[in-house]
């Protein structure tokens, strides 16, 4: 039996996700998705779990340095046995490296001196062409000039849409020829993750979180001002 037919049942049990930006909620809940993914072969399920651990922002450790994150990513990717997933994860991490470079430069940083700040094939080229708007990669990466322009304008929502759209389109092109196989499952799950991320963006929640952060920061400032306020005022003469 052809290997590509193994996941006919699993894929048919997954509801259609529709377009990314039109989605109001994920096509099925995380619990149900995990229940359905229990049908995967254990080795392949492991590969998918490793990939999601690297790609999902919620699973990243914020305290880790860039160099540590790159080392960890290389370790995890070396452990992924499925070449399709390995390529997909590598592509996503290279994309994040490009975006990280754009953001660093936007903050006014100069070109990194060693190569441990980023992941993948573009690191050296980015360092060499640091002062070019799209690092000289306009032809290889068509969305990069637009991303640079949006970042410069401060259009963060549009930038996020552009980046998510680029990932979505890449997954679309990778899905060619994969209909009833493990690769189709991987693409579905990564798309589910993207929809989950997009649909949980909430303007009101973001404003509340912003206020919370401001309050935290101001509390620190007040605390540092308090001793001077408590100190006896010099008498006026």
């Amino acid at each position, binding site marked *: 039996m052809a290997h590509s037919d193994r996941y006919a*049942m699993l894929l048919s049990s997954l509801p259609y996700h529709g377009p990314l930006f039109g989605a109001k909620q994920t096509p099925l809940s995380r619990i149900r998705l995990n229940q359905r993914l229990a049908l995967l072969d254990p080795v392949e399920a492991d590969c998918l779990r490793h990939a999601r651990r690297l790609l999902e922002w919620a699973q990243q450790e914020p305290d880790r340095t860039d160099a540590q994150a790159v080392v960890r990513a290389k370790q995890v990717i070396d452990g992924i046995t499925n070449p399709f997933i390995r390529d997909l994860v590598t592509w996503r991490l290279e994309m994040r490296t490009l975006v990280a470079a754009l953001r660093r430069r936007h903050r006014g940083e100069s070109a990194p001196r060693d190569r441990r700040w980023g992941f993948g094939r573009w690191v050296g080229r980015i360092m060499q062409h640091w002062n070019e708007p799209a690092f000289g990669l306009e032809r290889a990466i068509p969305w990069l000039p637009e991303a640079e322009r949006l970042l410069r304008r401060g259009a963060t929502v549009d930038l996020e849409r552009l980046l998510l759209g680029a990932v979505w389109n890449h997954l679309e092109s990778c899905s060619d020829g994969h*209909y009833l196989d493990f690769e189709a499952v991987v693409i579905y799950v990564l798309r589910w993750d993207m929809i989950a991320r997009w649909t949980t963006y909430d303007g009101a929640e973001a404003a509340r979180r912003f206020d919370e952060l401001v309050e935290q920061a101001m509390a620190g400032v007040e605390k540092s001002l308090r001793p001077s306020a408590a100190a006896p005022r010099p008498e006026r003469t």
Partner: protein
Amino acid sequence: MNELVVALGWAGLFSPMALGAIGSVIGCSVAGQAAIGAMVDTDSGYGRYIGVSVMPSSQVIYGIVIMFSLQRDVTPVTAPALFGIGLLSGLALLFSAMRQGQACASAIHASKTKPEIFGLSLAPAAIVEGFAVFAFVFALVLAGGIPG
């Protein structure tokens, strides 16, 4: 040498039936799995999914009919024709059933999301069936020309 030729003749005689059955097993299992998956995700239309998933079973029926049409004394004179027609028609039935199973699985998968395309989504599977019918009919025509 004659024994080998006769043995090949017997193999050819049984090939359409055996290869057709193998193809139907694979095709029906793939489409059947897709039908079960679709039933997990939907609340209606179960009969439709199961109906589509058994489409690749026709190949084994064609194989049985070809086998009976080829059935005659297997001699060094008839064996080469039995082998050629039987084996090649069997292979055609095998591959058509396998591919039809995949086409049916895709049809089930697509029509689950958009029920209005159910009929149209079956067109690829029907076209594959048409090729199996070609192999079947012309095997019968050629079987009529074998002496004995």
